């Protein structure tokens, strides 16, 4: 019991990393379970934020600011990805009146 309390109170790097794993897992789960393209995009944002969290946690742990700089780049890439992704969703919807990604399977054999 005391061990548990100690673990709860002594928040450290591993707590952040496990949270990141959870976030990544929820995001991935969303990507392959939900059929709506918008939800998929949101899940991808969750995955990216899980990655960002590990970057920042390690940056803090190693006291290396490069992790933070990298996280900023990740945010910029995520913004670009969201913009393009949403544009594609709009384009697809305009053509097919449907954004269910499990039905968008023309890119195959």
């Amino acid at each position, binding site marked *: 019991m005391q061990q548990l309390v100690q673990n709860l109170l002594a928040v450290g790097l591993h707590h952040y990393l496990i949270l990141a794993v959870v976030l990544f897992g929820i995001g*991935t789960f969303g*990507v*392959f*379970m939900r*059929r709506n393209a918008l939800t998929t995009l949101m899940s991808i944002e969750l995955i990216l934020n899980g990655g960002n969290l590990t970057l920042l946690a390690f940056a803090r742990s190693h006291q290396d600011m490069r992790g933070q700089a990298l996280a900023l780049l990740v945010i910029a890439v995520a913004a670009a990805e969201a913009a393009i992704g949403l544009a594609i969703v709009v384009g697809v919807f305009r053509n097919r009146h449907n954004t269910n*990604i*499990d039905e*968008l*399977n*023309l*890119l*195959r*054999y």
Partner: protein
Amino acid sequence: MTENFPLSLIILLPLLGAVLNLLLGRRLGNTFVSLVACSAVAGAALVATKAVLLVASDLPMRGALVDQLVSGDWIVAGDFKLQAGLTLDRLSSVMVMVVTWIALLIHIYATGYMEHEPDYARFFGYLNLFTGAMLILVLGDSLPVTFVGWEGVGLASYLLIGFWYHEDKNATAGRKAFIVNRIGDFGFLIGICLLFTVVGTVKYADFSSIAAKLMTPWWMGWPVGYWIAILLFVGCAGKSAQIPLYVWLPDAMAGPTPVSALIHAATMVTAGVYVVARCHTIFDTFPEAAKMTVAGIGALTALMAATIGIVQRDFKKVLAYSTVSQLGFMFVGVGTGAYAAGVFHLMTHAFFKAGLFLGAGSVMHAMGGEGDIVKMGGLGKHMPITRWTFFVYCLAIAGIVPFAGFFSKDAILAGAFAAEFRMAGNMAPWQASLVALYPKLLWGMLATAALCTAFYMWRLYFVVFTGEFRGTKEQESHLHESPSSMTLPLVVLAVGSVLAGLIGVPAIMTHGLPESAEHLFTFFTSWLSPAMVPASPEPHEHWLEWALMGGALTISAVGIGLAALLYRGGISQRAEGLKKSLGVLHGLLWNKYYVDEIYDVLLVRPLRRVSGLLWKVVDNIVIDGGLTKVGPFFVDIFGAMAQRFQNGDVQRYIIAVMVGTAGILFGSTYYLAYQGIQGELKIDKRTVTLKLGDVRMRPGQLIYAIDWDGDGKFDETNVRFNSELKHEYGNAGEFKIVVEARDPVWNMVKRSDDWFFGANTPLSAKVE
């Protein structure tokens, strides 16, 4: 004794010209093209002259200028290392001077001859390419480098023979030249390989010390040097148009006339003679059967081609057979050991034969491309410069003193007469007498060939330039002297044809002259002195030498006289009558001894038939019918399997990524723990040593728990990885051992008594 000199400049200038002309020439116009082509060759000629002057003044007799063509090693294959270098010694100097300066003259001539040609840039690009390749051939310091140039000139020759490829005839002639040369080149290449295998070197500089190794007996009791020489000579026979590979050269006249002059008369076709002289150590191998072969084939070719030349009607064909015949003379020269004489004839021949071809070009230019001499006649009035220069060339090739051909041909004839072939001592008497008689036979054949040469050259001269014009009225109205860019080279070559022979006057003629004059008249003899190539054989008695000289001169005079008798002032009735009365012989000569037809029946048609069979049976039935179905069959199967994964559903793709990642994670960590429980036991009385894991594992990478007695409880826990674990049993008996390995990082646990992938051997210790 060598010295460095940028010889690669001589090669790179024409090659650069070729690149410029072929890539940019079409856009930049004819003026630019001719400027680039001529200045590239002129630059090469000037650098070459400078280099040759250095060789003459600064270096001792066997000295050479050297240069690297490729830095470092050129060919590396196992132990075989070869550098690509260039070398210029006294022998290659002769060739370099001939090639660069005659090429320059012909380039200048071609600017006039080809002025109406739409594909001007391509022509000069090829011509420059040829010059560069020829210079590589001549300057190469080893047989492989020479071979590069050898193939390069072959390519340029093929491209230029088929230059007007729109006509099927020309393209076919180009292919014929290429294929026949390929046969020769194959022999040449095998010769190089054999030389390297047996002797271990292919560099000319090392040739002076290989004579002993060439004596190694090899095949059919002959020394290896004989076979190398024969194989190299096969290549030379191809390139230099000797029996049996001469058939391409007459057809090669399909190319533009400057090409015929440069490639198929003055330079490329003499490459074989040059190589024989260059590799004289190999050809000199005792017994000298190789030399006998070379000389014999040379003499046979000389006679055969000369007889064919008598009856031909096409201007350039006559000259082509004349070239084949003269090349035969040169091979007799180098084959009888008169290397200097052979190379000397090569040089003088380059002057007058180039001139003859350029003269032919000038005539055909005026005739509007007509090449049949029967339709010419009386052209001397209209084109005096061409006529009189042609007159000089004809004197030179017929061998009239003091023109160039006299001295060089005399040297070859004298050499052939006086030659002695060193053969093995244990010959039967009839064999020995045959060998002794052989040089006289060669001399006889050459003398006959010389008679024919004088006859057909003067027949050509009389038929074309004297008498009445026999062509159409329209052609007659267009007759004109050629532009100065064409006549200038003719004049220069005519001067060369007069003077070139005077540097190689036989020693007996220069006795009593002032020392400086003697020095000048024997310049060539001292240039290629015995230190460079072996001395030419000479008759021992002066009277014999004079007699031979007089005989040769008489033969030439008789030939010219006969030609004048039959053709002076046009084709006489007597000539026509002679043609009728000797109908069979005429037919035989007119059809060139039916050699092309014989080759067609013996080689070409069987080859076609076999090819057709292979095409219809092997290609159509076996390959297209069977083999090509096998590949698609498997492709279909695997494709059907693979396409199931490509279902276009991105959700399944990401599931696949997840499953794959999990699989990798599981597999890699499981494998570590699995390796950790593999072990072997060593039992020494009651002490058991258990060797676990893999040598690559680090201490502490795995944590072990061990149950030594199989009671289900671990006796030792938290043992850090250590390849050897020891245990001593208290009492005897058989014990089951269970090991559990745990990866502390990934928390993968593996027990040796797992039903699934347990230890490869059940661990149990039997102690006493």
